[in-house]
């Protein structure tokens, strides 16, 4: 075995040329082979090699090797691309969560700013801190989101501009407010209106785009169509084995059979893996990911409602449009919570707030604006501020937990794929080698 040239007929060596690399390494001692030198003889060598039954066998051996490699390639590719799809789905899911967090924090900042304004005089240090914390999270969130998905870069750049404009207008409102100038109220109105008209639609676009990307990847992760090619390759090798058996009247070729079994195992293994990842991903898409998106919808609608309550009171009797928006937000929150599993504590917390809101509206509608404002800004559980903050905290925690779970489960799915792909590729190469050895044996026997 150590000295190839002596244990093999010389004619066997050129076989490696059409068959490809695996067994085709020229043994030392055959001397350098150059293209220039091989061209004149190449045609005659080829016709000699493919002539007669041994020629046919050589041809089929080459085809068998190609088929084995093709099967290995598509299987490994299916595994890797489903892994890549799951990874991208995880990334896109994380991006959806990021964009929704920015959305919630902007509305939260606006709710705090408008509410502080409603109380009159100087805002409390607590509300100032809440506003600043929300805006800091927005700034960090935009930077992280831009780094995570370059395709969102332009949109997030535009969003960043809008956020800056909003923050600048709120500061101008504060400054004028501190000086006791009514123009401050106008700046706040402009800030809130601009936020809803210019910034929020951009975030909505980012959320929608990434949700679509995540869903596309969920679909892509369970595509097993390319494995049909692998199946064809396997059928090809089986056909070759049958042909060989008929031609040589030797029915069991151990190596070739081994190759076929190996390839079959690789193909089935890949199919099971890809299908498993696909169904697990679908479970995440419908489960944690769906919950995350729905809970985020509830959170954003709730914070929008809270800002609308303040704006309704600020506009003193001309806030019907804002109260209408509150009603729409209320419907959206309840609809979203209805789709969430185990949402009854959240629903009852929201109902607590909605009840207080109804009382606030009743007071204001009956001319008791001062009492309405007092109730709306009351941080205890008897007021809007208290009941709302309780709901907001709970729903945000639920959303963060669901989002984290979705991303973690997706990351977990993707982890084993490279090893599986490598194993399948190695099995296919081994099978290719077995094909060469198996058919090679018959060629030798034939001579």
């Amino acid at each position, binding site marked *: *075995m*150590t000295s*190839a040239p002596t244990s093999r007929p010389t004619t066997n060596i050129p076989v490696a040329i059409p068959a*490809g*690399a*695996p067994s*085709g*390494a*020229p043994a030392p001692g055959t001397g*350098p*082979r*150059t*293209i220039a030198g091989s061209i004149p003889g190449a045609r005659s060598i080829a016709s000699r090699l493919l002539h007669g039954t041994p020629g046919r066998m050589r041809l089929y051996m080459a085809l068998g090797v190609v088929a084995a490699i093709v099967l*290995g390639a598509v299987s*490994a*590719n299916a595994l*890797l*691309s489903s892994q*890549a799809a799951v990874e991208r789905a995880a990334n896109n899911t994380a991006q959806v969560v990021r964009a929704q967090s920015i959305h919630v924090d902007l509305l939260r900042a606006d709710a705090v700013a408008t509410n502080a304004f409603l*109380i*009159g*005089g100087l805002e409390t240090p607590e509300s100032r801190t809440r506003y600043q914390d929300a805006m800091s999270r927005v700034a960090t969130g935009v930077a992280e989101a831009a780094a995570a998905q370059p*395709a*969102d870069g*332009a*949109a997030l750049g*535009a969003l960043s501009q809008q956020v800056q404009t909003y923050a600048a207008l709120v500061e101008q409102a504060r400054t*004028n*407010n*501190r000086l*006791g*100038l*009514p*123009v*401050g*109220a*106008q*700046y706040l109105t*402009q800030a809130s209106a601009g936020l809803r*008209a*210019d910034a929020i*639609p951009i975030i909505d*676009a*980012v959320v929608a*785009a*990434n949700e679509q990307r995540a869903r596309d*990847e969920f679909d*892509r992760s369970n595509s097993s169509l390319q494995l049909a090619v692998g199946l064809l390759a396997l059928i090809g090798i089986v056909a070759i084995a049958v042909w060989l058996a008929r031609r040589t009247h030797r029915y069991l070729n151990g190596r070739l059979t081994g190759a076929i079994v190996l390839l079959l195992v690789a193909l089935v293994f890949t199919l099971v893996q890809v299908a498993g990842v696909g169904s697990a991903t679908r479970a995440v898409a419908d489960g944690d990911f769906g919950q995350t998106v729905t809970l985020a919808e509830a959170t954003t609608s709730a914070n929008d409602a809270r800002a609308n309550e303040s704006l309704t009171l600020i506009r*003193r*009797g*001309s806030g019907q449009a804002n109260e209408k928006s509150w009603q729409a937000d209320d419907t959206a929150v309840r609809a979203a919570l209805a789709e969430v599993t185990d949402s009854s504590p959240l629903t009852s917390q929201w109902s607590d707030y909605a009840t207080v809101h109804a009382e606030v509206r009743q007071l204001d509608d009956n*001319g008791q*604006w001062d009492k309405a404002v007092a109730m709306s800004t009351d941080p205890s559980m008897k007021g809007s501020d208290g009941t709302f903050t309780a709901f907001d905290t709970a729903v945000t925690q639920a959303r963060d937990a669901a989002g984290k779970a979705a991303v973690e489960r997706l990351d977990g799915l993707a982890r084993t794929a*490279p090893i599986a*792909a*490598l194993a399948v*590729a*190695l099995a296919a*190469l*081994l099978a290719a080698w077995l094909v060469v050895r198996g058919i090679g044996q018959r060629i030798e026997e034939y001579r």
Partner: protein
Amino acid sequence: MSTRHAGTAISTDRAKRPPLARPRHRARLRLAGVLAALCVSALGACSSVTYEPTALPTKVTPKPSPSTSGTPAPACSNATQSYDPLGSIPTRSEISDAKVNKILKRGYLIVGVSADTYLFGARDPFTSQITGFDIDMAKAVATSLFGSPKLQPRVITAAERFPLLQDGSLDMVARNMTMTCDRWTKIGFSAEYYRAGQKVLISKSLLKTNKDAASWGLADLTGKRVCAPTGTTSLTKLQSVEGPIPVTASNHTGCLVLLQQGKVDAITGDDIVLAGLAAQDPNTLITSAKAITVEPYGLGFNKDDVYLIRYVNRALADLVADGQWKAIYNRWLAERIGPAPAPPTPVYGR
């Protein structure tokens, strides 16, 4: 090394290594490993995905939008003429008018006011209450009706004054509203309670390029962007003057924001409103040009509430007679534009 066939890696490998016990197998294994790794990485690379950039939402037309076309007010001579006041403030039992009884039964007066006209009707940022000359007028009316100033101020824009009076959402409007013949066709007015005139407020930056700017009137502001709130007589006048480019905002404070943001060069409006804006921004100046219009202010009512208007005219006349009108004027305006002049002479007989 000189070989150019596939398997270069293995032949180089072999050349370097001394022959070992089973070099072939090792080499094959090595080759298989390298190939498999190559395949895997190549396939991994070709399955990468690039996304389309996230589409930005299409932007709606930005504010402020220059407005065109203004309808000139129909000429008439009795814009300030209101209904005769009642002989005296009646007791509750003497009132048979359905509307006034409805208000009395409700227990408070719903008044459309401005929350951003500094000195006339503006939200006090410290107390969150709406205060000003107009608010005190409304309180005086409410006090006359209920014995105490029971009123529900409802913040409205200039453009909302007419529809809300017409549909009965408001009992009264006290929002620096000019009495015009055109408006008399839609709503009713009390007797005149304040007389203003339209002037121009400019950004002091205009003085840098033209020292005469301090005395400019509307007609001198050729090519300059001038702001006036929608639905006001100031805007109608602005649109009738050749030269300035009219820009609108929802209220006067909105105009001030546009001026502070450099989106307009000047604001036109009633002198007292401009005084309120100038008080909020030392970088502005009310020009010394004479008032281009006379703006008689009246309280606004539903056209059919004639009894209520007559009642309020009585209350206003009493207010002037007992010196309260002067006290209210001095409380809000004396500091800015000097002590109270003689109150406008009411015209009755409509």
